[in-house]
């Protein structure tokens, strides 16, 4: 009983290592957003006016894109656990497309900011904006590249219902990007 309990703790979905990464990342971004909120209280007008320069509608579309990517990846893991690696690779490919769509839209948002001279040192609001969303952008880029590897391996039949830990770990990393974005979207784009 105690042995089973210990085993269950040491083997969360995707493995304990990815969960340590997820927790560290969530705590890091939460700390960043907490400092952002403290700064917002110190400079309410500056943060309000800067918030008006954000593209909330683009962020809304990006949120729906990431949520949809999360759904696709959850399905990829689910069908693989049932042994259907062909369907799993199709769901993974769909998730990759959502990752690319997110990166494309976010790049447009960054381009629009830079075009208006709004860079990292524009003001304290945009320093947080660039650092927090920029690090998240890098995470989505890495997650998308990981999924490309998963896609080719799944398609080649390297994973099965008895061997899916790599896919589950990669999906967990992908969902972590989703979770972080949900926090960024609420605090930076909506509640400003």
């Amino acid at each position: 009983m105690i042995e089973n309990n210990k085993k269950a703790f040491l083997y969360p979905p995707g493995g304990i290592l990815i969960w340590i990464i997820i927790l560290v990342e969530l705590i890091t971004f939460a700390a960043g957003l907490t400092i952002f909120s403290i700064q917002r209280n110190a400079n309410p007008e500056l943060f309000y006016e800067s918030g008006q320069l954000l593209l909330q509608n683009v962020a809304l579309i990006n949120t729906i894109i990431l949520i949809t990517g999360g759904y696709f990846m959850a399905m990829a893991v689910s069908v693989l656990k049932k042994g259907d690696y062909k369907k799993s690779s199709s769901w993974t490919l769909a998730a990759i497309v959502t990752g690319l769509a997110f990166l494309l839209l976010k790049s447009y948002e960054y381009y629009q900011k830079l075009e208006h001279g709004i860079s990292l040192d524009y003001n304290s609001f945009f320093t947080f904006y660039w650092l927090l969303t920029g690090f998240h952008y890098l995470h989505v880029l890495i997650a998308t590249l990981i999924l490309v590897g998963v896609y080719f391996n799944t398609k080649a039949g390297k994973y099965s219902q008895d061997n899916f830990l790599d896919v589950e770990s990669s999906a967990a990393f992908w969902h972590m990007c989703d979770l972080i974005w949900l926090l960024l979207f609420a605090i930076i784009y909506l509640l400003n």
Partner: protein
Amino acid sequence: MNTLRINTITWLVLVLLTLFGYFMAEGSSLAKPVVFGLVLAATAIKFLSVGFQFLDLKEAHLAWRILFLGFILIFAVAMFFLA
């Protein structure tokens, strides 16, 4: 209910909560603390839905579930009081 159906319902709930949060923040005439509370509550539900359903945390050890739930509750409450 099969996984496809549960995941599809979860996705739909996530999209609806996202739209709800967006329109509350952008176009609501409610008082600021109410808007903050509703948007943060919607965010917390979305966070838990992704974690428990998409990340399959519902199958994980109780300690992981408590840790995950504790994180988002502390975060949401902290953000509400910092608003």
